[in-house]
């Protein structure tokens, strides 16, 4: 039996172990906890370590230390816990260290709620910590992708020496689907010559650091980092188009919302409206060029998100507002239904242009 029936949270954990990650540092929080539980059960059996830290802040700093040695390390949390980790995330980015951070989003702000949300889009893609920095942000939309994108996240993080985030949500974390772990092919990766793993008097010692006293030195380092970000933006964009070829109305969505929107697109088509779905798989790098190309042939974009309107701004920028870009969302842990999204497509399609 090659396929297993798993929760999204479990699939991430299993995929991380299979990607050679032997170090998990975390602190439990709903709706992410099965990930920590899976690690706690599996890591000791498979030669790894699962450590429940005293806080989210401790956990992310343990990741910094572990990854500085060249090992693959992962931490996971849900929205409020990610805010706590933001200092460590910035330090990891500033130290040019790879790692994987999982955010199984729930409603916010504050303690918010425990039901699914996508209201950390801006945090993940714009300001995951202080300073000029990016995370690679991957947005799975199925339990299979929770697994395959986790493997990819480790490879991308190592390749570009930067943290990668899996931006999921409570629904994806909790729902169960079949998953096949045999699918992934790992990338060829550069040797970690920068790792602090003991020089044995055979080479210069390596230093992992994010403090630079001289402004011009720091500027050069940040600029070098942004050169790498350019490479990421050039090479690593991932998206999926569904029925966009002849579409008038294109929904832009990611994660669980894209799954729901896909059904809404089918429903709208059944009612004679030419709808399509553009699903972002990478949120950073954002598929801006691809949306720009699409903006020349469609009549409108609807950004469907479980928040008050965050990704919609990136769609507007990407498409230069060539056609109307509107937002449809639910928030606070409420998941939009197929019916709601279908009605929004039909409502906007029925509107007279201009």
């Amino acid at each position: 039996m090659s396929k297993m029936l798993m929760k999204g949270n479990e699939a991430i954990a299993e995929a991380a172990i299979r990607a050679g990650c032997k170090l998990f540092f975390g602190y439990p929080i709903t709706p992410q906890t099965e990930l920590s539980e899976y690690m706690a059960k599996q890591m000791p059996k498979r030669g790894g370590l699962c450590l429940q830290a005293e806080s989210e802040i401790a956990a992310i700093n343990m990741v910094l230390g572990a990854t500085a040695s060249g090992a693959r390390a992962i931490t996971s949390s849900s929205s409020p816990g990610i805010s706590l980790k933001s200092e460590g995330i910035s330090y990891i980015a500033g130290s040019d260290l790879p790692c994987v951070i999982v955010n199984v989003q729930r409603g916010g702000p504050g303690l918010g709620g425990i039901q699914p949300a996508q209201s950390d889009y801006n945090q993940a893609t714009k300001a995951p910590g202080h300073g000029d920095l990016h995370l690679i942000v991957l947005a799975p939309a199925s339990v299979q992708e929770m697994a395959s994108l986790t493997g990819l996240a480790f490879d991308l993080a190592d390749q570009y020496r930067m943290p990668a985030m899996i931006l999921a949500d409570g629904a994806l974390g909790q729902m169960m689907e079949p998953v096949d772990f045999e699918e992934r092919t790992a990338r060829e990766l550069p040797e970690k010559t920068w790792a602090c793993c003991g020089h044995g008097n055979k080479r210069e010692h390596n230093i992992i650091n994010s403090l630079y006293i001289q402004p011009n030195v720091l500027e050069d380092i940040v600029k070098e980092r942004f050169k790498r970000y350019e490479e990421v933006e050039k090479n690593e964009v991932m998206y999926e188009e569904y029925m966009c070829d002849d579409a008038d109305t294109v929904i832009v969505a990611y994660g669980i919302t894209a799954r729901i929107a896909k059904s809404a697109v089918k429903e709208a088509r059944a009612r004679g409206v030419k709808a399509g779905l553009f699903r972002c798989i990478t949120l950073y790098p954002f598929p801006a060029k691809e949306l720009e190309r699409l903006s020349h042939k469609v009549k409108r974009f609807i950004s469907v998100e479980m928040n008050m309107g965050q990704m919609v701004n990136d769609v507007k920028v990407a498409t230069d507002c060539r056609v109307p870009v509107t937002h449809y969302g639910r928030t606070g842990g409420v998941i939009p239904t197929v019916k709601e999204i279908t009605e929004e497509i039909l409502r906007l399609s029925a509107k007279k242009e201009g």
Partner: protein
Amino acid sequence: MITELFKHKAVIICGHFGTGKTNIAVNLALAAADRFANVCIADLDTVNPYFRTADNAEELRRRGVNVLLPQFANTNVDIPSLPPSFPLIFTTDCCSVTDVGGDEEGAAVLRGFAERYESIGYDMYYVFNAFRPENANTDYSLYSLRAIEAASGLKFSGIINNSNLGAETDRSVVFAAQKKAEEFAKESGVPLVMTTAFEKNAFPGCTVIEDVTKKLF
């Protein structure tokens, strides 16, 4: 008929989380409501606030089942708590289905009620899904079954083979799991009392159930 599970007035549904316990419990309660006068379903899942009996409360009530839920189920204060009216299953003449949380952690809640279950007569069933990681081999399954018995202070009277791969379940999936379920039953000494299938995969000897899991898309 799934109602064959009722040999005493109380049925308890346990197992590794994600094996389909709630789906079985809800199917059983709905079928029981068609046959018996007074049917209760109690949501005793103190482990996980997602995908639980409360998702089906409306349909269950509509069909005459008395639904006993924790007070704040499916809200943002879904704290691990027991339904206040839960003891009704011991004090009235109802037939009851108790839907328990996953694994031994979920089953621990039964411990305080073990004597009361014994006094009214119960059958506790282990829901088995060969495609779940903790049921993937017989040793894991045996551990899980014994751990639940130890935590609950109650004994299993049967195994329900509910093996499935979600939306990708077809007949070959159901058949592939049958041998594993039989082996697990043999090793555990607990009889395999039922194998479930959805209508489209039905085969002679199976019990047909409906998919009552909340649909998001």
